[in-house]
């Protein structure tokens, strides 16, 4: 009889159930989407913050001072120590290799350029170099770590580079390939030398082709950037790298992050080592690259933590607001649905149903609605989160399956809470009034 009552109520009162069902579905969908976005926003914003550039730099352990003023490197090329280029792919072998977005080696040297033999800094680096470590193949270089570098040059088919993100035009208009003898010239240097893309330029005795004009808004505007291998040839030091910029996704700094790993107990050390702090990633980089010193670039690393925690905090508060609004909507819909059925309650009670039996029927209905609405809402919310991820961040926001039972539990709880007051009102309602039609 109990299940028949519930079943018939769903069969005959479709419209009322529909309103409550839609409210639960929408409420749960919004809650799911907001929770998914709020939990993922840290990672997403972290990736956006990578457009500030590398947050770690690896230098040789025993290095002499950099002598650089206004973008001109005054350090003799023979001076100081180097890292070995062959060690670099090992960066992918660190514990947090999935958090390492990319790295770029740098080899700055001073060269004579043009007919009047001006001193200019030539920097060797990777543009978008294909490397492999173990079984992994990956590409890395300044196009990943220095996304604000813009190159103006003709494409191979003569087209101009379209504006937009680097990923949008893999062809790479104007960017030299990493095994070529082509170079990029900074825009201010190009104006001084009166050169444009496609011209030849004499760099310490070699005739090189300018494939594009580089604009960075920084010191590189006065420099020449070339493939690393070419610069190594020019100075006659194969495999030499002055420093490596590493761009990594990190966790905001906290009390544990800044502790000295040497003074930690083994458990604390493990926890520290297995957290993607910028400090622990630096430590791991030093482990894999021999004779190296890895350091955070404080300008980038220190600030991203604050920005990140602010945005995460904001989203958390907004998620609470969304949850509150959803809960309110579900309660209102449930209250309405139950309120409309007071006459029925009167009839049931007149026929001898106790308060408990009446409430049980209503709660069973609410439970059913919550589960059905919860499942529908969860799927809708997952879709919504994906849509938000795709349209705002150009990447997926996936909803963790772990969230499913939690969301359903919340849906049931909120539905019950919303119905409780209305059910109590309905149960207390005098059957006499109900049957006289004074509901």
């Amino acid at each position, binding site marked *: 009889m109990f299940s028949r009552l519930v079943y018939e109520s769903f069969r005959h009162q479709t419209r009322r159930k529909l309103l409550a069902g839609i409210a639960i579905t*929408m409420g749960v969908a919004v809650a799911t989407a907001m929770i998914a976005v709020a939990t993922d926003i840290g990672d997403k914003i972290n990736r956006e913050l990578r457009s500030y550039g590398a947050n770690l730099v690896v230098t040789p352990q025993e290095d002499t001072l950099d002598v650089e003023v206004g973008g001109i490197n005054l350090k003799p090329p023979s001076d100081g120590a180097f890292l070995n280029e062959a060690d670099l792919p090992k960066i992918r072998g660190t514990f947090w290799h999935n958090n390492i977005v990319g790295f770029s080696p740098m080899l700055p040297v001073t060269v004579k350029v043009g007919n009047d033999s001006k001193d200019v800094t030539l920097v060797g680096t990777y543009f978008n170099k294909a490397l492999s470590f173990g079984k992994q193949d990956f590409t890395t270089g300044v196009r990943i770590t220095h996304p604000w570098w813009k190159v103006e040059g003709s494409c191979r088919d003569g087209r101009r580079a379209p504006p937009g993100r680097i990923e949008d035009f893999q062809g790479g208009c104007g960017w030299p390939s990493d095994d070529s003898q082509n170079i990029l010239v900074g825009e201010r240097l190009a104006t001084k030398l009166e050169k444009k893309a496609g011209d030849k330029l004499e760099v310490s005795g070699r005739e090189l082709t300018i494939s594009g004009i580089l604009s960075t808004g920084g010191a590189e505007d006065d420099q020449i950037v070339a493939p690393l291998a070419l610069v190594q040839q020019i100075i006659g030091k194969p495999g030499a790298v002055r420093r490596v910029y590493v761009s990594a996704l990190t966790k905001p700094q906290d009390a544990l992050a800044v502790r000295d790993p040497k003074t930690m107990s083994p458990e604390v050390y493990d926890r520290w080592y297995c957290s993607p702090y910028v400090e622990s990633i630096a430590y791991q980089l030093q482990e894999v690259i021999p004779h190296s010193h890895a350091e955070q670039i404080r300008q980038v690393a220190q600030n991203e933590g604050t920005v990140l925690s602010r945005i995460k905090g904001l989203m958390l508060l907004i998620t609470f607001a969304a949850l509150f609004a959803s809960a309110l909507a579900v309660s209102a819909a449930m209250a309405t649905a139950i309120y409309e059925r007071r006459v029925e309650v009167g009839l049931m009670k007149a026929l001898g149903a106790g308060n408990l039996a009446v409430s049980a029927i209503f709660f069973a209905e609410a439970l059913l609605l919550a589960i059905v609405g919860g499942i529908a809402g969860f799927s809708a919310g997952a879709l919504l989160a994906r849509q938000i991820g795709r349209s705002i961040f150009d990447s997926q926001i996936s909803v963790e399956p772990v969230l499913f039972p939690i969301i359903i539990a919340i849906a049931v709880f909120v539905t019950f809470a919303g119905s409780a007051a209305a059910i109590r009102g309905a149960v207390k309602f005098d059957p006499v009034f109900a049957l006289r039609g004074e509901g």
Partner: protein
Amino acid sequence: MTMSSMPDQLLTPKQVADRRADAPHTSMFARMLLRAAVLRRRRAASALLAMIVAAAVATAMMNLYVDVQAKLRTEFRNYGANVVIVAKDGRSLPADALASVESVLGARTLAVPFSYAVARTPGGQSVVVVGTDFNRARQLNHWWKVSHWPDAPNQALIGMRAASVVSANRQPFELTFQGKAIRLAPAGMLQTGAGEDSRIYLDQSEFQNWTGVAPSTIEVAVNGTAAEVEDSVRQLARFLPSADVRPVRQIMEGEANVLNKTRATLYASATLIVLTSALCVLATLIGWVFDRRRDFAIMKALGASERLVNGFFAAEAAALGVVGGILGFFIGIGVAAWIGRVNFHAPVVPRFSVFPYVLVGSIIVALLSAILPITMLGRIQPATILRGE
């Protein structure tokens, strides 16, 4: 709960007519609106609550939407200068350059001069020495990790890596520049992870006395939107024709990226919340129509036209929108201020200019939510309802 209107005491029809004779006829409409709200308090309160939540969230969002960007921009200014002024061809900037930068940009900027020279250590090593204004540099470059800022004459701030060369045991040391020597005491260590680590920083006036080199670079942190920064760059370029003025693209683009994404996420969330709240208003209004079906049936039985009943209900919804909008606005301002304090540790300035939008928006949401209940109203048959079915 049982009857919607019950006279306080029994009056003869004549007395009632006399009492209302001088009152304007329209007051009946207002009276019905008010009585409905007073008698169905719980129902009205829950509809109002939904409305308030929608309006409060919308207000808080609009307040934050503008302010969060301003707040985040302040956070982004911690990344340091976003505009750099460099003298052309390795010369120095004119002596009044710093003053003119400040006069052009006014109070919302922080400008720090830097001058560079390559000095030699007694051991013959080259080291870059920089002259600057420590007070300003300290404000601009929050990320500099400094053990102790120089506070006495002839004290220098020494980069981590430079320290091992010039003053490994933190003893005073000597530097020479074009034959002129200076003796400096290390005040503290500077750690940044970048080029600064290899340099030695001196007070600008001491630096200039020693080397005779005037500032060649001014780093400026301009507060404001991308357009305002561009504008400042143009103004500065006009004012300082002898220098290159350029935005630091690394900083500008990173900032634009993060701001855009945050703004879009905020916007999407606000839309979702307002939609959910509208749903809540809708559910409550449907309940309200149902609850008061007898009132409407009586109105119809007494000869009210369909339009009048609909208009009455729409007026109720609009009134709900107005009250909810006003209350929600103030609560929303409070919420925005709270979020500002908790999350950004700075107050969010209330923006009363968004009030008309919130009010009109609330009324529209209430009216839109009333559409479905109004179609239900049309189906009310006075005869059936009054018969008690």
